[in-house]
């Protein structure tokens, strides 16, 4: 693929992902779970990654932070952080980068916290692993971080254990942990999915502020378009292992260029109007073993033509962004595809 959807700013990208492929060898053959994914993120930019469960969002995120679970492996492409390749580094070296330059936040705060240690001890250890600091200075920094993520009474709460915090506060502690060494990139995988909407808003405000104040780049993985609408500068929409659309958030949400994105946006209940029925996309995303020929979305697409059944579209410039859909190609989707032809 020659197209790389560039970030909006003209700054040098902080993260560059090119033609990334993630595979799983299984008994019945190799599954291609992330198929030729390319994007980049500039300093201070939030890239939202959305898509249905199983679309490949988490695998893309995990490939970047070097935490793919075997037998999953990167089978092609490259990942660069500040110009330097990080996809082929030995485990130990990647572990250092993960703490110091990349911060990771996951859906369930409890996976990132050790229930047996106070949050203070976990913060101090992480700080001292990555920064040359005395225990006293590290503790001071830990308190500052807890204040920064909005934990009231940080001086006192630092000695509490994870179970003594509520869900929203725990997620804030995890964000503080991810910030310990002042990372340049934060990969947040569904950071608010387990939280109430009221607390979601707090976490999102926090992520945005960090981005603005420290120029941190954020890759925000979620299936919640509401979260994306408020946080992201650009959005990548994933479907069956590929990016089907990427562009500025306002365009993707209000003027989607890919039929899948349009269906996805329509199916979200909104407070603007109420109707007898919600818009629905019939059928479901194909399993990795059953991805159809041509455009992977074609069995569910009301706009498909004959070309869609045989040729797979790459990202094509569409509006202010890019969409992997023949509707945006000069040659179009081809003559109408009959049902018989599609089933053949």
């Amino acid at each position: 693929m020659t197209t790389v959807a560039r970030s909006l700013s003209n700054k040098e990208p902080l993260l560059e992902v090119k033609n990334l492929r993630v595979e799983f060898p299984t008994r019945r053959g190799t599954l291609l779970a992330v198929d030729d994914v390319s994007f980049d993120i500039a300093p201070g930019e939030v890239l939202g990654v959305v898509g249905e469960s199983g679309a490949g969002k988490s695998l893309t995120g995990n490939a970047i932070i070097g935490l793919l679970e075997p037998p999953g492996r990167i089978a092609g492409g490259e990942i660069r952080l500040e110009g330097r390749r990080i996809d082929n580094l030995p485990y130990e070296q990647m572990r250092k980068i993960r703490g110091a330059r990349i911060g990771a936040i996951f859906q369930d705060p409890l996976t990132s916290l050790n229930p047996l240690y106070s949050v203070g001890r976990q913060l101090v250890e992480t700080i001292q692993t990555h920064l040359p600091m005395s225990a006293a200075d590290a503790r001071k920094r830990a308190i500052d971080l807890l204040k920064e993520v909005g934990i009231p009474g940080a001086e006192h709460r630092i000695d509490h254990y994870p179970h003594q915090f509520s869900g929203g506060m725990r997620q804030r502690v995890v964000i503080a942990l991810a910030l310990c060494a002042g990372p340049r990139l934060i990969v947040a995988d569904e950071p608010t999915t387990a939280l109430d909407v009221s607390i979601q808003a707090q976490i999102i405000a926090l992520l945005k502020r960090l981005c603005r104040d420290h120029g941190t780049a954020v890759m925000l993985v979620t299936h919640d378009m509401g979260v994306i609408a408020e946080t992201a500068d650009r959005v990548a929409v994933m479907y069956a292992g590929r990016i089907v659309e990427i562009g500025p958030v306002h365009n993707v949400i209000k003027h989607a260029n890919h039929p899948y994105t349009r269906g996805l946006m329509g199916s979200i209940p909104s407070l603007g109007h109420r109707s007898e029925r919600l818009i629905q996309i019939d059928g479901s995303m194909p399993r990795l073993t059953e991805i159809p020929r041509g455009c992977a979305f074609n069995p569910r697409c009301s706009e498909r033509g004959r070309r869609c059944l045989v040729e797979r579209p790459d990202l094509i410039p569409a509006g202010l962004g890019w969409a992997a859909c023949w509707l945006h190609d000069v040659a179009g989707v081809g003559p109408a595809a009959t049902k018989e032809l599609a089933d053949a």
Partner: protein
Amino acid sequence: MPDGSTLRSFVRIEGLKRHFDVSAPWLVRKLEGRSRQLVQAVDGIDIDIAKGETFSLVGESGCGKSTVARLVVGLYPPTAGRIEFDGQDMAGRRVRSESAALRRRLQMIFQDPYASLNPRWRVFDIIAEPIRAFGLATSKADLEKQVGDLLRQVRLTPADGRKFPHEFSGGQRQRISIARALASRPEFLVCDEPTSALDVSVQAQILNLMMDLQRRFGLTYLFISHNLAVVYHISTRVGVMYLGRLVEQAPTDTLFRRPKHPYTRMLLDTIPDLEMTGRQRTPVAGEVPSPLDPPSGCSFHPRCPFANDRCKAERPRSLPIEGGAVACHAIEEGRLAIEDRDYRPAP
């Protein structure tokens, strides 16, 4: 609903309470000098649901929504209060046959379509089970026809009956749960977060299906969700819960256009803005207090910008207003104005 006299209620919930004892064991309590601890998960709730309507309960995690659902279908006995179904007291059904007849008429759909289906049973047997249990089929052929019809009603095929639950996606499994819930031809369905574990595109399919089935069979729903936009689309009336109490209830449009209780307003402020009008979500200060130690008076007072001394001391009563009811001193005293809201995108 206090003005419910005009409304013939199909399901009536009165003064419903459920407390859980979460104390340490007796010996530990004695040794460490600790007292008993009670979670007041549901702390006095009144709801009237009319036939054919959808009444929704909303509120933050832990406010007691699922506990209400479980009380209504009889999975928990109430600590106090009564539940009436079509004029019959649910606690009073002493005769077994009577209780079976009632159970047939009300069914529950759970949040997690993975956990609620027996993984070792074929889909056919999962759906046939209630039909067999209540003796609703006249013959084997009749049973097969009923299961086939149910599968078609939820947009699956009779051939899917041969498969096991793990062969289906999350949305399809939720369809199977719905087919099973419909199998005993119930009139009342309690749905606890039926789409919360699903993607939005699948959620739209399930919500459309539920609305279709309601129109077709005249079903009555008690619908539980923490997603206010979903509730807006599916409900006739909405009740807002906070720490085990119902702080406001109103017809759906009234609740969203003219919210009254400060907590309802706060919840509405947290809905993400998809129209991209530039409206900012107001991050709410504070979180739900522990139900082990609920605040005095109005339990919302530590988070309420309108709280005063009376709020700290006196629990507000639920009073009728604009076709609904609200429990708030500021509204009762008239010191908090009610304003209209508009969510339509700016032209």
